[in-house]
């Protein structure tokens, strides 16, 4: 747990501080020092046009994190509104919304994302839209089931008999209850969104190819990989893997703390 938190703090600091100190010229090419193995001057080596992999990985993580955060926020907002509407309105509206959720889940997410990005020229906006449109269903399910259990609680009856409108019940009573769930789901959504963005970029359907992003870098590295230069693809991948593991370790720890029954199941 401490390791996971430490890793995340170091990465977050690197992502915020390094761009302030060292500027990265996205277009700069240095063919004289292409494909160098990791050394003291270039700890992660250089890629096929001589760019320092370490610096680009940090910039790439920054772009991925930013897109991941925005996309997670977008999908959580759509999901929370849909879930709240389904849970509160019930009946016909609930059935329609849940069928829409099923429908969105029937198209494999990456294919749907590919479809959207293919028809709207590859850009950060297209990626955010594609992630937002495909990932909101999980959030909608979570929020809906929470609303349904909350609705049965006595304090809701009390509020309504006290003259509260539905909107007031949602604002004053449900949202404070829902916020922790929504926050947790958002945190878990970020690695998903990053994965989605890197996969699209890797396929050449994400961010513009000259931009340092983790997916683009793995795609670039794939070419020199066949010549035996492993570092240009290995390190960007590790920068996806490690933060994802750290986030899930932290979420697991938080779950264990807040849900003692769960802990006894897993750790006895």
């Amino acid at each position, binding site marked *: 747990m401490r390791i996971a938190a430490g890793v995340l703090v170091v990465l977050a600091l690197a992502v915020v501080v390094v761009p302030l100190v060292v500027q990265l010229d996205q277009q700069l090419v240095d063919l004289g020092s292409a494909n160098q193995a990791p050394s003291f001057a270039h700890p992660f080596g250089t890629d096929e046009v001589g760019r320092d992999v370490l610096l680009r990985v940090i910039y790439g993580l920054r772009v991925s994190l930013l897109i991941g955060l925005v996309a997670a926020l977008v999908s959580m907002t759509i999901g929370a509104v849909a879930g709240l509407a389904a849970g509160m309105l019930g009946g016909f509206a609930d059935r329609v919304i849940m069928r829409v959720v099923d429908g969105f889940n029937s198209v*494999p997410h990456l*294919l749907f994302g590919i479809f959207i990005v293919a028809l709207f020229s590859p850009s950060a906006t297209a990626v955010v839209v594609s992630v937002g449109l495909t990932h909101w269903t999980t959030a909608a399910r979570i929020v809906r089931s929470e609303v349904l259990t909350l609705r049965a609680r006595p304090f809701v009856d009390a509020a309504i008999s006290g003259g509260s409108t539905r909107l007031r019940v949602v604002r004053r009573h449900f949202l404070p209850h829902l916020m922790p769930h929504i926050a947790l789901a958002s945190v878990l959504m970020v690695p998903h969104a990053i994965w989605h963005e890197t996969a699209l970029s890797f*396929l050449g359907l994400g961010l513009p190819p000259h931009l340092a992003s983790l997916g683009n870098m793995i795609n670039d590295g794939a070419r020199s990989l066949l010549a035996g230069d492993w570092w240009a693809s290995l390190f960007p991948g590790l920068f996806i*893997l490690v933060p994802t593991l750290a986030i899930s370790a932290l979420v697991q720890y938080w779950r264990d703390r807040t849900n003692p029954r769960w802990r006894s199941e897993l750790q006895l």
Partner: protein
Amino acid sequence: MTRALARMALWRLAFTVPLLFAVTLGMFALAKASPFDPVKQYLGVRALTTSPEITAQIRENWGLDKPVAEQYFTWLGNLVQGDLGESRSMHRPVIEVIGERFGWTLLATGCALVLMLVVSLAVGALAAWRRDSWLDRTITGTAYANEAAPVFWTALIVMWIFAVKLQWLPPGGLTDPAATTLEFGDVLHHMVLPVAVLAFSQSSWLLLFVRESLITTLREDFVLGARARGLRERTVVVRHALRSALLPFITLVGARIPELVTGAILVETVFSWPGVASASVEAALAADFPLLAALTLLATLAVVIGNLIADSAYVIADPRVRVLGVS
């Protein structure tokens, strides 16, 4: 039970038709909202020298001057009649492209699915049986890392180890570049890496599930009873505990089809496997709407079939289950 099964299947199918309509409508709306102009794309550089009259003629021939609703229904009518249109990037009928590539995807994903089931069952059971040993920790640690790692990256690392460093297996393609005919051994040789990577990338979730499920089952009374009767440890774990832990496992496999499709898209692209999944990427890079739309429908159909299998397995395994509110 047969009646329950039939009713469930019928309900599923009844939901499939509106679902497919909704998917076509969604795709068409997205295509109409897209800034890409199919005529300009078709003409390419020639668009600069083609006179506006000819452009308008092409537009009319393709029915692009008609109202959007009419265009949609024409397209839908063609789809229903089995005419999937012409692939704009490959300049061939879509049905031909899919027919040629579908078998390869089915072969690779089918083998990967079987391999994944066998491996995750065996390794998951092993981890549960030797719980909290170094072996269990290695297995679960690898599974968590595998779950967090993007599959295209895993594929590249595997390719680097086995194709570039060790040179045991070819790095991609379907046959040897020098080969003129399809040889069984050659295809098998090229299939090992993509199938193994696809199976490995899909296995961790199931493996962890089997482990968790078996650990819970191993604590149950009937396992204690079996042990008390002096049965061999292997018999207890495999014949008694695993059998009971398997029940939810079977039904969950069918629900994993979307992840399998996603994995196939990435793995086929990395290993240049000539299947339908990698065709979707090629179609997307060329903004080839007819091919992409057909492939999206195909994937949706695969997901629906997967859900049907999952539900059928559920109904067969436990007749009390109600699917979609139908008993």
